């Protein structure tokens, strides 16, 4: 019993670093996201309101014994919120001594300190402080700005107070855009997943048998997946550029088309009487191209684990290759395909960079993740941004739940 305890203790010690970093950087922010989604936080609110103090020397050509006027400017940084208990300190030159200073201020050992109870929003005032130059005044060594005045104050912090509201959710659900974005996100995730799986299955079937150069092709097929997304996305944007791009110019030169196609800027194309989301389709092609290698690797590994005698037996029974594929290979792959489908779907659902880099969310490709970014940094509203993120979270949870109910279980596991 003692032994077991010791072992468990050791295990916990070994796991503490991992658990604590995961807690701090993953679980706590998730909680923070929910917290923020119930608060009306703007990007500007992240900087807590604080006193701003500036000083300016008003007198010139000072001789010992002269009066010196220093203008202090006190300002509340916030336009909307008051600040309380403002304490200001500033080191002043040892060559001057105070004559007339503002109420609430005092000078002690060359240190000016002030205290104010409250500054209203937009508080902004200039106060002239009168000093006198001492007898030992040296103009060369006198610099009123030698130290920066410092101020601290209390303010109501919107991030940590306990006021909550549902306004963010109201706002985003009232936007027509949100419903449209949910639709786009589902279309994008679903078809990009299907595309990646289809390409992955084909690629795996191609490299199933051993042949000369198989290793080379396997390495090659992983290129799109291991390369940095920014590089491949920029390359695609460049290839598809309507004027400078390769593809349009190639098609034009060979007279396949008569005018350039805006591959990444065509929201709708009339296709047999219904609106075909063209740019979304291109983005889905990109995603399938970029992520098929993952599906390929998994399916290839599973393919090579299928017992060979199944094929031998069916050969004797006279099954054709196509029948073998549909009646042996595919059912054997079903588990891994289902697993890949759910993983790929979730990851596509969460994808931000790819669409952001390709289209910036324009031309009918704004997914929820891009909406989060737009809300936060284009509209400067952290509150609504986190509520969209919460929406993503909830939709994902629903999807995973449904998948758990209906999906075939993975045979391997």
């Amino acid at each position, binding site marked *: 019993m003692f032994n077991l305890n010791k072992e468990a203790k050791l295990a916990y010690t070994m796991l503490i670093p991992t658990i604590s970093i995961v807690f701090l950087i993953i679980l706590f922010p*998730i909680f923070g996201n929910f917290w923020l989604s119930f608060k009306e936080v703007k990007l500007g609110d992240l900087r*807590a309101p604080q006193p701003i103090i500036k000083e300016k020397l008003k007198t010139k050509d000072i001789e010992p014994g002269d009066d010196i006027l220093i203008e202090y400017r006190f300002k509340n940084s916030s336009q909307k919120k008051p600040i309380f208990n403002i304490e200001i300190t500033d080191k002043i030159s040892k060559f001057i001594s105070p004559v007339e200073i503002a109420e609430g201020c005092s000078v002690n050992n060359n240190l000016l300190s002030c205290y104010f109870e409250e500054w209203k929003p937009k508080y902004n005032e200039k106060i002239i402080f009168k000093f006198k130059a001492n007898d030992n005044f040296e103009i060369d060594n006198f610099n009123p700005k030698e130290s920066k005045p410092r101020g601290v104050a209390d303010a109501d912090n919107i991030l940590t107070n306990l006021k909550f509201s549902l306004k963010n959710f109201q706002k985003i659900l009232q936007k027509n855009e949100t419903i449209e974005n949910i639709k786009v996100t589902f279309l994008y995730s679903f078809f990009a997943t299907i595309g990646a799986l289809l390409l992955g299955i084909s690629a795996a079937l191609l490299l199933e048998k051993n042949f000369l150069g198989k290793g080379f*092709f396997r390495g090659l097929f992983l290129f799109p997946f291991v390369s940095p997304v920014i590089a491949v996305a920029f390359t695609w944007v460049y290839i598809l550029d309507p004027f400078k791009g390769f593809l349009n110019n*190639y098609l034009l030169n060979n*007279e396949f088309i008569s005018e350039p196609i805006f591959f990444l800027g065509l929201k709708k194309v009339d296709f047999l009487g219904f609106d075909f989301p063209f740019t979304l389709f291109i983005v889905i092609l990109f995603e399938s191209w970029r992520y098929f290698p*993952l599906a390929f690797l998994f399916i290839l590994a599973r393919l090579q684990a299928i017992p060979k005698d199944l094929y031998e037996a069916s050969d004797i029974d006279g099954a*054709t290759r196509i029948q073998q594929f549909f009646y042996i290979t595919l059912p054997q792959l079903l588990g891994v395909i289902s697993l890949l489908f759910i993983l790929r779907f979730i990851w596509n659902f969460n994808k931000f960079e790819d669409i952001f880099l390709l289209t910036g969310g324009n031309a009918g490709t704004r997914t929820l*993740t891009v909406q989060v970014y737009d809300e936060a940094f284009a509209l400067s509203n952290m509150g609504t941004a986190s509520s969209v993120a919460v929406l993503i979270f909830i939709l994902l949870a629903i999807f*995973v739940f449904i998948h758990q109910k209906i999906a075939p279980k993975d045979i391997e596991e």
Partner: protein
Amino acid sequence: MTNNIYQFFFIYLYSIITLFLLAVIGDFVSISIFLSKNIFIYKNIFLYCFLYAVCFFAIRIIITNQVSNIFIFIISLALSYFFLINKEINAYQILIIISVFIAFNLLLQKYFTAKNFSNFLFEVSFLKFLKTNSLIFFSFIIIFPFYLMFVSSLKSQMVLLQNPTDLSIPFFYSISDFFSSYIAVITQYNFLNFALNSTIVSFVTVFISLFFSIPGAYAVARLRFAGRSKISSSILIIYMVPAIVLVIPLYVIFSQLGFRNSLFSLMIVYPATTIPVALYMLQGYFKGIPYELEESALIDGCSRIGVILRITLPLSVPAILSVSLYVFMIAWNEFLFAFMFLDNQEYFTIPRGLYTQLDDQEVPRQYLMAGSVMITVPVLLLFFIFERYLVGGLTAGSVKG
């Protein structure tokens, strides 16, 4: 009779697709090397292939042995001269044309061998056809974007604007012209600084990930404690957490704490996202090491830590290597957090720098492509050197992307 009609139809169909693929590749090779116009007139492919199929069919019926292939080849070349080929070609391009037609004929003969010609089997020919063409197709769609990225980065602005379809590698440039975009990106856009930042962040991420995940993985794999199964399953759930859900609150928290705009912020966020993956991959490997080895060392009086250092770690070098590579690639390629957190140019990682400095209509495209090449090459090099480990690691860990 119906069989013959089918067969004719399939010869026609296969020849169109095969020829189209080969012609596009031939053209790309031709413009890559000789900087000249296209060889093929694509709109005539249908007509050409129809005539080709007729000849193929006729010759195969008259001559039933291998000799037929030679006739078909000669006729295909002759037909192509009349229908398919631009007349203004140079002597070198003839070589390409001949190799395209040799490949074309070899492939079609593979689908319709003289032996199986009289009793045509749809399935056999179709599978062969599918396999060959898919291999060509896959290689093409993968290589082409990378090749274009590379070639464009070598061009001058004038050449790029005048002829965007020019795929040739400009060998006739002097060395300094050849790499002019790279030199410009490095000198004008502070690229070395970005590269240094990326390198630091990536290495630190690898180091922290390993340092945290090795003991964690060992505990999950080998030690008995309450909550062990919960930990392994919750790792999988952490895989699913969207980065975008983390980025807003982390932005807020880091802004408040004052370390948002720094490399330090990336150095704690990246490991947090990679540690669960690393832990999952490593614990799978640790479980595969025979426990008897460790047990005997324990009985001989070695401590747990001693066992890990002397037995487990030396045995799992391949796994640690693949985890390190994988984590390095994630950190090197990462864009979202770098994009959100970093404001100051001096802290930019390469993806962040590329996005702000080079993705601008004012900046010539070849600079953007040169930057893209420079961020891609280290990853692909590492990948090629350690491919064996990486592929193993990718499948073992059911890995995120």
